């Protein structure tokens, strides 16, 4: 019996020794996997469908921003689209909902949801843990278009003239559209978190509206060949509640048949 007791005690001691791993530095080292030189400067857009009353959204947004940091902030853009039940207006919470965001959100029923280089959730819907692989794949794709945005903002009148120039850098076939969006970054407002309400939460890259509709405007149907160029110009008045210093124009080109986005660019309004 003594032997049995001894064996039991030894087993317990062994279990104690091997069964605890204390992690002192939780973050894994950044080891970016940039695209090959041959893929040029292919950029990728992540749409983060979020809500001010979604307690899981801040953590998910943080995760996606770490991905952006990992792959390069000049190659990965994030647009926070407030849509869905948890984004709906409620007393004391800011209202960031938009008609376009609601259209992209469609019949989805939860937050946070994401997509990578897709216009709406009907064409792709991902949980935060599923973003990494499509993002890595998208960054490895061959670049088809180059986008240049030229903004001219009049501080006195708050009038913005923005021109998006799309240039094909390789051949492709599709039903190509372009959408221009107004984004406001770093808006301080109430957000529900896992530990309660945070009244001074910083909302990053909030989608405010499009300049040409939820599904943009067509510029080419069929084949595009290298060096073909198209441009679209828009004039808008910036709402007084928007901080022009924090506003950006984000434009992307997509195939309206598949709703797949080919290229994205983002430029400050001022």
């Amino acid at each position, binding site marked *: 019996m003594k032997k*049995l007791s001894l064996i039991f005690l030894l087993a317990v001691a062994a279990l104690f020794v091997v*069964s605890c791993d204390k992690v002192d530095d939780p973050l894994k080292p950044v080891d970016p996997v940039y695209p090959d030189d041959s893929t040029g400067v292919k950029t990728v857009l992540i749409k983060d469908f979020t809500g001010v009353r979604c307690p899981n959204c801040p*953590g998910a947004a943080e995760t996606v921003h770490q991905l952006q940091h990992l792959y390069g902030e000049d190659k990965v853009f994030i647009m926070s689209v407030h849509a869905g039940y948890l984004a709906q207006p409620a007393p004391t919470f800011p209202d960031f909902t938009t008609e376009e965001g609601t259209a992209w959100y469609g019949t989805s029923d939860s937050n946070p949801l994401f997509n990578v280089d897709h216009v709406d959730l009907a064409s792709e819907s991902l949980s935060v843990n599923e973003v990494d692989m499509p993002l890595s794949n998208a960054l490895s794709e061959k670049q088809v278009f180059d986008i240049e945005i030229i903004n001219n903002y009049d501080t006195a009148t708050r009038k913005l003239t923005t021109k998006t120039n799309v240039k094909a850098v390789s051949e492709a076939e599709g039903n190509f559209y372009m959408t221009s969006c107004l984004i406001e970054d770093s808006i301080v407002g109430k957000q529900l978190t896992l530990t309660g309400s945070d009244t001074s939460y910083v909302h990053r890259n909030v989608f405010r509206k499009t300049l040409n509709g939820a599904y943009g405007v067509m510029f080419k149907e069929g084949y595009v060949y290298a060096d073909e160029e198209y441009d679209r110009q828009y004039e808008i008045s910036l709402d007084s509640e928007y901080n022009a210093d924090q506003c950006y124009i984000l434009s992307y080109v997509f195939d309206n048949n598949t709703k797949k986005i080919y290229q994205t660019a983002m430029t400050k309004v001022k």
Partner: protein
Amino acid sequence: MKRLVLLSAMLMVVLAVRAQSFIENAQINGSFQTDAQVYMEDDGIGITSESIDGKKFAVNGFGKVAYAYGNFSAGIRFEAFQPPLNGFREELKGAGLANFYASHDNGFIGITVGDFYDQFGNGLIFRTYEEWSLGMDNSLRGVRTVFRPIDGVILKGVYGRQRYYWAPYRDRDMTISDERGLVRGVDGEWDINQSIQSLNDAKFRVSIGGSFVSKQQEDQSMFYYIPKNVGSFAGRINLGYGRFTFSTEYAYKINDPSAINNYIYKEGQALLASLSYSQKGLGIVLQVKRIDNMSFKSMYTAQENDLDINFIPPINYTHTHSLPSMYTYSTQPNGEMGAQFQINYTIPKGTPLGGKYGTKLALNFSQVNDIIRDSINDNGMMVLNMPGTDGYKSSFFEASGHKFYRDINFEIDKKINKSWHVNAQYINLFYDMATIEGHVGMPDVEANIVALEATYKINTKNSLRLELQGLWEKINKNSDVDESEKKDYLKRGDWAFALLEYTFASRWFVSVADKYNYGNPFSEYRDHYYTGSIGFVKDATRVTLSAGRQSEGVVCVGGVCRVVPASSGFTLTVSTSF
């Protein structure tokens, strides 16, 4: 050759005799249950063909058989969810052998192989159990040993992988959605009075215990170093002196980032303490608990109640009446601090208030608040509950002002004479619906509830039972609520409930009931939920057939809850055991 034939014949005789003995001297018991529902459209409560989505019939069923012969026992359980009833997880869909085991225990040492259930102490770091009404089963498949070296000492060891619906148990080629870790644990308990002969009958009683449980998991995270081994330990002590009993258990868990705690690396802690006093006609219990980051699952990405290794006991009154049980508290593993006080007193027989049979009184108070969370400095930046950090700091003995739940109730139970038995209960309830049910932005429930019950025994075989309940809630009836949020108010506002049950010929019962949400803030939700039931009970067999509407609610057992959506149709329950 002849020798071989003779040997074979002898062997067969011995086996036949043993087999006969295995059957005749064995104990076999089992139980079976089938819950079936037919779902029907009901425009009155918003159940349409779209919301039913083709699911017109659902069945949950199980059958289990256990065999015992001397020190040996074995058992199996078969389950079928074809498809699961509304409110049960769709992952349950399927049928098969869910549980089997074989065990040998000679009193000194016991070994179980297969699927088993066990608990260390209060379960703060280890409890596997099965709860049919929740569709929950977190059994371990592996090996369990029990060792009793001397009187009063029990040592246990467990090792295995938890059940995860119908996911196969396998070590290799696991997909991301099935990355269950291994669970290993040991527990020791020493009843000092039992071990030391001179203390066997002592007035002062002491037992102590301790456990250690660890999970081994694979790190599949891209961003964070997930610890491959997460250990937890707990210590407990039970003291008794005369009519007083005091017991307490403290548990500690090392860094365990998970989807539930937002991938923070803070340690987890839990404390449970209970002091009670009892004498004839009087019982007093005071309980306190503090839980901080104590979700412990064998898969760090698991959600809800999936793959729980531990169990956090609730310290709240368990309501059985229909209306208060709509707002049952669900434990918050990320943090809560609560207390409960219960006093039971029986006014003695033969006194003016006690009457011929005595009068039972019970008063209960319980409240649970959030814990305090303060931001921490992480590499020069102040953060709060940020993934990849230690999350927050929290003062151990301080509760937050954020109240999750409060229940004050008073009950009188009185047998008036041989024919009449009455029971009355008043409940004052506070329920943080936004936190407990996840309906973000919903106002708290502050309700007064009265439940009255009277049973009239007509004769030895026939009786009549009447139950009346009312729930009055302080809620703004002119709430300016967005159309899409209205459905969260489905069970809010004032309710009335009535039930009449007639039991006849000892074995049959028939009942009619109506639950009416007459004070819902929105007129379209002021619905009647009427049901009619008929049932038959004989020995351990019970058959019940109900028809009517079921309101939306939650079913909670031990602080673990599942949401039951509203439905309309028929329900048949058949259960038996032998």
